């Protein structure tokens, strides 16, 4: 087998193509690669709404961006668009981060999920092969801990057998194996990063972590009443996306392509995440009930701020004149309504109960360890969502309409 092309000299900037650049990982990775001096191309889908919020700051910062960030319209379900872009860009590295990435949605849209997530990866690999870039272009495939599904051993590492439990996971399983197949069959430098859950302040709002931090911030400011969740006992290994994209890049800088598990090795339940986010906001939650009847009550709800605080201040004034009612009854009114409850609609037909990664290989071979702790991750997410909630609350208080969408 002929060796892969050597790393280019500093004179010629490396060129990277990121599919899914408008997503959480795409944004962090683009930022990282721009910092490293890359020319970065990204593929975005045409949509009737703006969908580049997460990378707009990279455009605006002239020091970072200049003319080194380019966006192209394309779609993982459209072979010719991918071939055209890859031919034009001639990338040294392709990061395939594009996907229908929501597990629950995959049960509703299984075919689309397979088309974009499974065939999407194949279309990129085929384009590389078709254009004769097998020795030039390195390929990173965003694989997922969901492959382990009904876990066959704990913790999960590179050698753990897969047991996918959703159309999303099955589609990603195809992409995982076709990546290995193209590495073995055609000598493409192609590898999988099996990433466990990784979050950030720009995580999609429908993913459970972001849903929690957003909702609690809004509840605190009186913009929302209750956070509805699915299986609160689910155990996950949550890291920070910023740490994980560094590993994506590292994987493409090695002598030979290999697959790696990326994880923190620490596990928390969804309920733990709620408690951590609440703690960050100074909110104390008392849990009552079991299963679908489990509810979280806000004990120190007198902290309720913003619009609610406004009302409460007035109420408190009223209460002042009725000393016997002070505290007790009024707080009880708020406390009688839970701020966290279970909605079985969010249960999945097949649940993945527990995921815990063992990233020993990444540590030993690439020297990678996550730098951002769980508490720091939650704190950052809460901080950012509280800012947005404060902005919304301010807008609302001044009589303007703010976006109020939540699930």
């Amino acid at each position, binding site marked *: 087998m002929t060796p892969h092309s050597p790393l280019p000299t500093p004179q010629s900037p490396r060129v990277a193509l990121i599919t899914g650049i408008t997503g959480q990982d795409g944004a962090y990775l683009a930022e990282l690669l721009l910092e490293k001096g890359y020319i970065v191309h990204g593929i975005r889908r045409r949509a009737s709404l703006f969908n580049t919020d997460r990378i707009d700051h990279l455009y605006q910062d002239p020091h970072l961006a200049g003319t080194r960030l380019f966006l192209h319209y394309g779609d993982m379900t459209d072979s010719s668009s991918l071939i055209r872009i890859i031919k034009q860009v001639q990338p040294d590295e392709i990061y395939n981060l594009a996907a229908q990435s929501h597990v629950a949605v995959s049960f509703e849209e299984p075919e689309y999920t397979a088309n974009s997530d499974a065939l999407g990866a194949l279309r990129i690999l085929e384009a590389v092969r078709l254009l004769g870039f097998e020795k030039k272009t390195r390929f990173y495939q965003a694989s997922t801990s969901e492959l382990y599904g009904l876990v066959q051993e704990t913790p999960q590492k590179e050698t753990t057998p897969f047991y996918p439990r959703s159309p999303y996971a099955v589609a990603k*399983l195809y992409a995982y194996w076709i990546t290995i*197949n193209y590495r073995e069959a055609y000598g493409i430098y192609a590898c999988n990063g099996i990433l466990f859950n990784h979050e950030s302040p720009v995580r999609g709002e429908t993913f459970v972590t972001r849903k929690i931090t957003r909702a609690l911030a809004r509840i605190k400011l009186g913009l929302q009443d209750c956070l509805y969740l699915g299986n609160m006992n689910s155990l996950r290994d949550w890291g920070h996306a910023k740490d994980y994209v560094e590993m994506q890049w590292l994987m493409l800088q090695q002598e030979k392509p290999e697959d790696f598990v990326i994880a923190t090795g620490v596990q928390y339940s969804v309920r733990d995440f709620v408690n951590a986010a609440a703690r960050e906001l100074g909110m104390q939650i008392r849990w009552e009930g079991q299963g679908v009847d489990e509810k979280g009550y806000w004990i120190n709800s007198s902290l309720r701020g913003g619009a609610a605080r406004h009302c409460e201040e007035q109420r408190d004034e009223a209460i002042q004149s009725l000393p016997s009612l002070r505290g007790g009854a009024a707080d009880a009114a708020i406390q009688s309504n839970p701020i966290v409850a279970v909605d079985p609609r969010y249960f999945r037909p097949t649940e993945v109960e527990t995921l815990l990664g063992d990233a020993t290989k990444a540590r030993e071979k690439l020297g990678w360890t996550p730098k951002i702790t769980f508490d720091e991750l939650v704190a950052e997410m809460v901080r950012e969502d509280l800012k947005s909630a404060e902005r919304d609350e301010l807008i609302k208080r001044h009589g303007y309409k703010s976006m109020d969408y939540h699930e």
Partner: protein
Amino acid sequence: MSETVVPRRALICGVSGQDGAYLAQLLLTKGYQVWGTSRDAQMNAFAGLQSLGIRDQIKALSMSPVDFRSVLQVISEIRPHEIYNLAGQSSVGFSFGQPLETMESIAFGTLNLLEAIRFVDSSIRFYNAGSSECFGDTGGAPADEQTPFRPRSPYAVAKAAATWQVAVYRESYGLFACTGILFNHESPLRPERFVTKKIVAAACRIAKGSDEKLSLGNIDIRRDWGWAPEYVDAMWRMLNHETPEDFVIATGITQSLQDFIATVFSEAGLDWRAHVVSDPGLRRPSDPPESKANPDKAKNLLAWGSTCSGADVAKRMYAAECGQSVIGLNKGEANV
């Protein structure tokens, strides 16, 4: 109204292939009404059904498994009790040249059938044709239902995805859906792009005087070759088992392709070494050197076992090719 026994209805997707033909024959003998689909039933000669003499007894329909509308229409119309999904691009070698079509026809076809069953009637039982190719190289260890997949061709990756889709739908929605992980199974109905048939056909022509050379890729590969008519019986048993489960279907005996060649040529009274040439161009980009199976679960739970070794398969295929025997389900049965 008097109670009459309603015959069971079976739908075979991909009835024009080898397994489809034998399965149709088996189900007819069991009293089923059998519908069979092909992407374009008007244009398909159904040569397999013809040669088994059952073309007239099978109701042929056009259905493209990748087109959800056509799948839904056929299932709504027939309301089968059992669906056998044998459709899909079936050649490993071909899958390197048409990986996308391979994935679409295999995995999207399976997905559409599962979705249509959910939509029309979730009591319909569903058999999905898996493949031993999913195991890849097990390093000489016999593969069973617990062996992790390590697929090594676009065909095998697509079959692995389809197998997991079936498992997800079984576990998520309680469908009676299962995958038969069949090891290589051959018969005279194999088309010539399959290596076994290619060898048999060439040996037969050479025995009749042709001076051709038989070009083959890697003949050191080792496989578990069984007799297809026996394997379709395993499919039926899987759908009539109490619970939906996946099964490995194989003989349990592995031999090399060279052994297979030697048997065929010796049936022809020839020394294979004089007629076979190696063509590196026919080697696949990646190919597991050996496949080995442990079919104990099928034996224990389905009371199914193979009575035909790889050598028997080679002999029967050769005999059929040279017009010396019949090709139906039962060895002694007359047909055509």
